[in-house]
């Protein structure tokens, strides 16, 4: 048993962090969030073509690096630190779902497109659309809200029903019958769109009996991805807050020397580190212990989300007045925290799901 990251994994982290520290500066993030409709386009191109980050866990036979989800998690965590608005999370979760369907139908060409630099998105609430097949041709209709980075993705994976059976479909977003409307977002570092489908052609990625399971598993992988992103954001937010407590002087001393603030920061550290352990453990289960993922995925998402929310809300308070300004970055973390929680269906629903899967309720 070995919990530490391997040397290669540590090197990956250093490479990604170094690149992002040079290029994904707070100014770049700000500009993309406020003017670029939530998309740092040129930096995204470099992340996928130069750094090849979206193909980390894709089969080498298809041009990927053949790594595990642990490596993907490391990249998610590092990107999470920056809040850079790029469609990395939905693309790698889509890649994971496609990789598991790779012996099936049209998954391989879609994976090859991701390797070539395409962004993808994934919408896993099956209630919003339904599909039918006629003479081997599948079409899908419905209105799917809150599609992450939909406006920047080439195709979407959709959880839906196909002839009343749960199924995972792929839809071309620039194709006929698909219309995307980007929405202004509370968290400007995350772009969301409404996808309207009117008899849009689609490909089915799952066998009839395996749809529900594939959707559930994709949701759990999405939960792990979200946990890793939140851990990165939470760690960065706490670092910025601690630095401010050193710099800011009142009453003739750094405010970080006051025990009333020290103890609150200690509690934030105690929220973050165990959540980090849980998220790391969860990334390992994706391939290392798939049976545990159904519990550990949502569990990691819940505690990482809690840590980010606790740290980002305290960050505003501990910064005082400056933390309430638009100019300061504290609010970006806070908005990311709340929107992540709301988009996963809320904390209560997540807790109930864990309780059910653990056999408690």
């Amino acid at each position, binding site marked *: 048993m070995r919990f530490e990251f*391997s040397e290669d994994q540590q090197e990956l982290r250093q490479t990604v962090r170094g690149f992002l520290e040079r290029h994904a500066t707070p100014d770049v993030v700000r500009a993309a969030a406020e003017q670029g409709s939530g998309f740092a386009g040129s930096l995204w191109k470099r992340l996928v073509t130069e750094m090849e980050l979206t193909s980390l866990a894709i089969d080498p036979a298809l041009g990927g690096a053949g790594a595990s989800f642990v490596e993907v998690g490391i990249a998610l965590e590092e990107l999470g630190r920056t809040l850079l608005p790029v469609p990395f999370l939905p693309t790698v979760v889509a890649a994971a779902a496609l990789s598991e369907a790779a012996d099936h139908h049209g998954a391989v060409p879609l994976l090859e497109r991701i390797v070539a630099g395409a962004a993808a998105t994934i919408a896993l609430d099956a209630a919003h659309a339904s599909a039918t097949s006629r003479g081997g041709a599948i079409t899908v209709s419905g209105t799917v809200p809150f599609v992450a980075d939909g406006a920047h993705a080439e195709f979407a994976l959709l959880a839906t029903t196909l002839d009343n059976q749960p199924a995972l479909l792929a839809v071309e977003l620039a194709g006929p019958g698909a219309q995307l409307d980007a929405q202004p977002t509370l968290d400007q570092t995350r772009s969301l769109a409404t996808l309207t489908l009117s008899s849009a052609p689609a490909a089915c990625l799952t066998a009839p009996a395996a749809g529900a399971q594939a959707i559930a598993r994709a949701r759990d992988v999405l939960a792990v991805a979200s946990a890793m992103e939140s851990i990165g954001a939470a760690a960065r937010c706490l670092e910025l807050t601690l630095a401010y407590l050193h710099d800011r002087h009142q009453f003739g*001393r750094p405010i970080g020397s006051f025990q009333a603030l020290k103890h609150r920061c200690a509690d934030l550290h105690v929220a973050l580190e165990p959540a980090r352990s849980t998220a790391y453990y969860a990334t390992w289960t994706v391939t290392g212990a798939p049976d545990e993922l159904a519990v550990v995925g949502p*569990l990691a998402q819940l505690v990482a989300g809690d840590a980010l929310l606790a740290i980002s809300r305290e960050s505003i308070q501990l910064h005082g007045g400056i933390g309430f300004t638009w100019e300061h970055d504290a609010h970006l973390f806070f908005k990311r925290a709340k929107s992540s929680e709301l988009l996963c269906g809320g904390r209560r629903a997540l807790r109930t799901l864990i309780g059910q899967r653990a056999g408690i309720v």
Partner: protein
Amino acid sequence: MDLRYGVEDDDFRAEVREWLEQNLRGEFARLRGTGGSGREHEEIELRMAWERALGAAGWIGLGLPREWGGRSATLLQQVIFAEEYAKADAPGRVNHMGEHLLAPTLVTFGAITLQRRFLPGILRGEELWCQGYSEPGAGSDLAAVRTRALLEDGSWRIDGQKVWTSNAAFADWCFVLVRTEPGSERHRGLSYLLVPMRQPGIEVRPIVQITGTSEFSEVFFDGARTDASCIVGEAGDGWRVAMGTLGFERGVATLAQQIGFERELAHVLELARANGTIADPDISARIIDAWIELRVMRYHALRTLGSIEPGAASVSKLLWANWHRRLGELAIDVRGPGATTLTGTPYELDREQALFLFSRADTIYAGSNEIQRNIIADRVLGLPRR
């Protein structure tokens, strides 16, 4: 990152399980579930016999080097032993202080003569130890220790008072932090002495706690004696030795403790199902939260196992102490109004009542929550001292 156990770990686990299965029998069978925090008074004589049985079979001091009678076991093997021990519901250990605190301290700081004299008694389960650190005026501020010792006619003469000493009533020996340089202050001038408990100069007075039971005692030293050689490290170097003792906990006990926590939580869940309180959304939410947090503690303990980073032990202590205190509150809420009356006189507590009350100590002893937060803020987060 690979979180699977190796084949050799599985073999070791099977060996431990088999031994416990074979030996928690006969008169020892009734020890299952006895002892442990809040119940140290239970079956004390038989638990001492059990400790000797463990020692005879080589299960004490697993992590110590072979030349000292240990097994040179890896941290993971120590975890496996402690987990299997907890899963078997084997009794609370009577010599935790000797095995986990003093033995590694002797190996690290002790003279070879002291190692030869004291390690075998610990490893055979024959000599039991208690810890003399806290005093009425030195709780969180341990460096304020005032108990003094002076060399007189080839032995140390000790005068003063220790408090919150676990197992003082039956321990054979005590490791004591004392001031050996008159007029010295704070961390200087302290020494780490080994003192026999059964002598006229020592009086043990049990402290009656909010539970009505007495796990802790006051220990009065009035001209107590120990041989001049019974000092670990140099005279005046006691602070460093005592801090070393506190630093030997590297996460093994934390993982084993969680097995007991799982059992307690399972019991609360069972009770909530039996009396229908599980249908109360507040109760079920708290049970799920407790379950989630216990899993989180496990993943965190696995990641930090063996860590000697400053603050790792403080994070772990804050996590489990707060968790266990909340479990006590949950347990009594699940019991409902029935928990307001006792099962017997003078003050006989059932399981939930004992958990509810005893867990108030968890966030105070072994470094209060507030001290743990100080340690994290100063040593991990590097926040300025002034």
